[in-house]
């Protein structure tokens, strides 16, 4: 890896494979563990997946410049986490060690019937325009620019509605006690 490669990568100091800059990858790894835990994985699972993710990131990094190490890392971690749960669900249910925290995993919580009801109630209470923006963006995959044009508002305003809508949904979840990550050790 040449010197110019380092400069190309905005923001992130990158390491050549042979003289791996441990400090940087460690920081990425710490962030990955946090991320995976916040997505509801147990600490030991999170550490395994972070480790595996880092290994794959380093391989990718050898061949090409990564625009966002974290974005790619999170995406790899997501996939590994799904794989993990898939493999895990084939096994018989292990008895929970921690009796006091009896919570479902993040995604199971977010996909439960109750969550759908909470989201629905929250959506119903939203300003109609915000709900419309969320439906078009998330469900119909329309771009913010197109949505803005169709609803006669600026692209910025569309993005604001999405941000605000997500916060509303998150608060609704919190109020309903459907709290992710925190509830699984």
């Amino acid at each position: 890896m040449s010197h110019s490669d380092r400069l190309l990568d905005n923001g992130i100091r990158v390491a050549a494979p042979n003289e791996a800059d441990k400090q940087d990858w460690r920081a990425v790894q710490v962030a990955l563990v946090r991320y995976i835990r916040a997505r509801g994985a147990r600490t030991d699972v999170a550490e395994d997946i972070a480790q595996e993710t880092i290994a794959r990131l380093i391989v990718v990094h050898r061949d090409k410049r990564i625009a966002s190490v974290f974005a790619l890392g999170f995406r790899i971690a997501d996939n590994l986490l799904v794989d993990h749960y898939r493999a895990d669900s084939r096994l018989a249910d292990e008895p929970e060690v921690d009796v006091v925290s009896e919570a479902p995993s993040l995604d199971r919580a977010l996909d439960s019937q109750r969550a759908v009801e909470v989201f629905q109630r929250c959506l119903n209470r939203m300003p109609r325009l915000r709900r419309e923006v969320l439906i078009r963006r998330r469900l119909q995959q329309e771009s913010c620019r197109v949505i803005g044009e169709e609803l006669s508002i600026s692209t910025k305003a569309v993005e604001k509605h999405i941000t605000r809508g997500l916060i509303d949904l998150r608060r609704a979840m919190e109020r309903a006690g459907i709290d992710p990550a925190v509830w699984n050790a």
Partner: protein
Amino acid sequence: MRSDKAEIESQAATWAELMNRPLQDARAAAEFDRWISADPRHVESYAEMAALWQSDGLDAALRLSAANGPRARNDNDQQGYRWTPGNSGAPHRAVAARTLPRSQRAAILASSILLLLLTIPVVQGILAPEQSYTAARGANRMIVLADGSKLNLSGGSRLSVRMTPWSRDVRMEEGEAYFDVAHERFRSFSVDVGNASIAVLGTAFDVDMMAEGTREVRVYRGLVKVEAGGTGWRLPAGSGLSVSKDGVQRLNNVLGARPAWIDGWFDAQDTTLARLVDRINRTSDRPVVLADPALGALRITGRFRMNETRELLETLAAVHDLRWEEESTHYVLSR
């Protein structure tokens, strides 16, 4: 200034949508990495928002919303602000619902209402920075916060409160306090006790900061979430949690409408003498000192009146075969 949490959530939500697009431009990508690296809370908030945005649950809810159309308004729900479009006459509603002027009107109406809702609290937030409260040793203190929440501070307690339009954050430094929290739909209420944090909705609970980092939370009304060491627990009324260096333990003996200490009592149930003494010293005019620290391990059961230190020592001495003496600055308890 906006509260940190609200600011982070807002940024996280923006990133969650942005980074889930198939393509990102290089500048945004670099900016994202900088943002993630800047603060460990960023990655957590981002993970939550991304999970929410990607969830099948949201997908299903949006599908139902879209299928029911704009008329899907759950009028049974009484809580919260509700934007009511000016179309009570039903006939034209279905036709007019998706036309632009109405959407625009919706946007203008909605934003002006939001603005109204937010402007006043924002100003208050700026004018009301962190406020500290202390209860001197020897006396309890009652505080009523601007939102109507009532805090009962045991003698020798110290805490600070920061109220923003988005959050009510208490940082407890020392002692014990009973919180009777005013329910607010849009404002969270949390208590940070160093090694654990407690998030609540309208509810009443007691927090005791004990020696060696032990923290006890008891819930008298509503539901409380305690987070410690990356794990969370939900505590309904009548239960509690003890977090110490030895681990976490559920407390199931939370009885009554509020903690006994507020009424000047202490219910010891197989409690150590050290703990009882610690408690006495919060309200006693003169502290009680154990002649031998080992005495602190003695187990006590009984209901004690806290504002009569001598009477209490007399009772203790009689029941547990101890002796006590009054010195000029303190009481000494010995075997």
